[in-house]
């Protein structure tokens, strides 16, 4: 078992939920906000909450079988995760990015 990740520096009570950083290709869903708040105890729950707030956003990054799409990346803090059941703490920061790809 991995040790629990240390909490990032900062005030745990500062936010209501986790911060989620949104990459530019998905900001048409978030009214161009680069950081939004979302709730959930796992990455999947946070993505569900994102989809409630910004309908359609999650299907662009997660397929209909619940798999993170090939060229999308999600970091929890500094850890890249592909398992969407990865647990979160309220102090975590989630970063959604697109991998180097395309042309």
């Amino acid at each position: 078992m991995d040790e629990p990740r240390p909490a990032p520096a900062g005030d745990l009570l500062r936010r209501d939920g986790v911060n989620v950083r949104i990459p530019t290709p998905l900001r048409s869903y978030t009214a161009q906000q680069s950081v939004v708040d979302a709730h959930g105890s796992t990455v999947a729950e946070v993505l569900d909450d994102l989809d409630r707030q910004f309908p359609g956003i999650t299907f662009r990054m997660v397929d209909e079988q619940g798999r993170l799409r090939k060229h999308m990346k999600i970091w929890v803090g500094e850890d890249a995760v592909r398992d969407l059941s990865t647990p979160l703490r309220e102090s975590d920061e989630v970063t959604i990015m697109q991998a180097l790809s395309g042309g």
Partner: protein
Amino acid sequence: MKLLVGTRKGLWSLSSDDRQGWSVGEPQFFGQIIQHAVADPRDGRTVLAATSTGHLGPTVMRSTDHGETWAEASKPPAFAAGDRLDRALKTVFWLTPGHPDESGSWYAGGASPQGLFRSDDGGDTWDPVSGWNDHPMWETWCEWPEENTPDGSMLHSVIIDPRDSDHLYIGLSGGGVFETTDGGSDWAPLNKGVAADFFPDLAPEFGHDPHTVRMHPAMPDRLYQQNHCGIYRLDRPETTWTRIGDNMPRSIGDIGFPIELHPRQPDTAWVFPMDGTEVWPRTCVDGRPAAYVTRDGGATWAPQTNGLPERAWFTVKRQAMTTDAGDPVGVYFGTTSGEVWASADEGASWTNLARHLPEIYSVEMA
């Protein structure tokens, strides 16, 4: 009139009042992959665009004001969660408005997997067509789980019989042509007479590679097919295709992606041959672009090169050629080198409408 030009980097609209002067609009969905953008002839205002990006999943954008403003489908085409084969759709490849009596109905073809999807509300919400996607033969007929087609396995050419909304044809690249007569509950292959030179079995029942299949709107029993292995015609209720491409000049051959029809004359069709020799460059044969037209159902073919560049090495993809309803008929095609060409006189002469666009995937009238 308006042409919808789907490209690898966005959607362009070309507009004209007289088919002589054309204006090229600013791109919509700039940077996004537009596989297909199609207008609904039933209401004259709905347009759907199949979009994705290199990173984001596939979706459908909808316009109800002829392409001025757009909103995303609230439930895009997708397999069901918990699908029996764990399938997830990579690309919405093909869009077809449904039967004229079924207002708001649309079909979407996937690539890949080769799924079929239907909407009954103008493209806002989509459901899998279970009769196809869960057909007991689906895994056998389709390229699954391996894909042999270079750009992915595609379901395309969704064709609805104007006389019977339950009678449909679809094309699979690869897989062949399939038909349903019960609204999509059951399907059967329809490939007799079609070559499949990439198989050791000279007459397989399925596994062929139709590139585009068209039904003549004024003679719905007549089907044309531009296949990986030739040009064919089938007049139902016959079930054996005739290789009308054998009547093309031997030096040109009968390989290509699109085949487009005259809206009123069932014997008239256009193709844009490509080089299928040696390593299959798929560019203009001998670097000399030419459309070919038949006016006798494929018995004879004539080249149409007036106005086209003498030498060029582009490809015209399967959705990138179309005709309008004018008299004489307008014929249009887009190239992988980002050019749009048009003829207002049924191919007798060609003029360039746009250059330097991104790689063109689809050209449709709106």
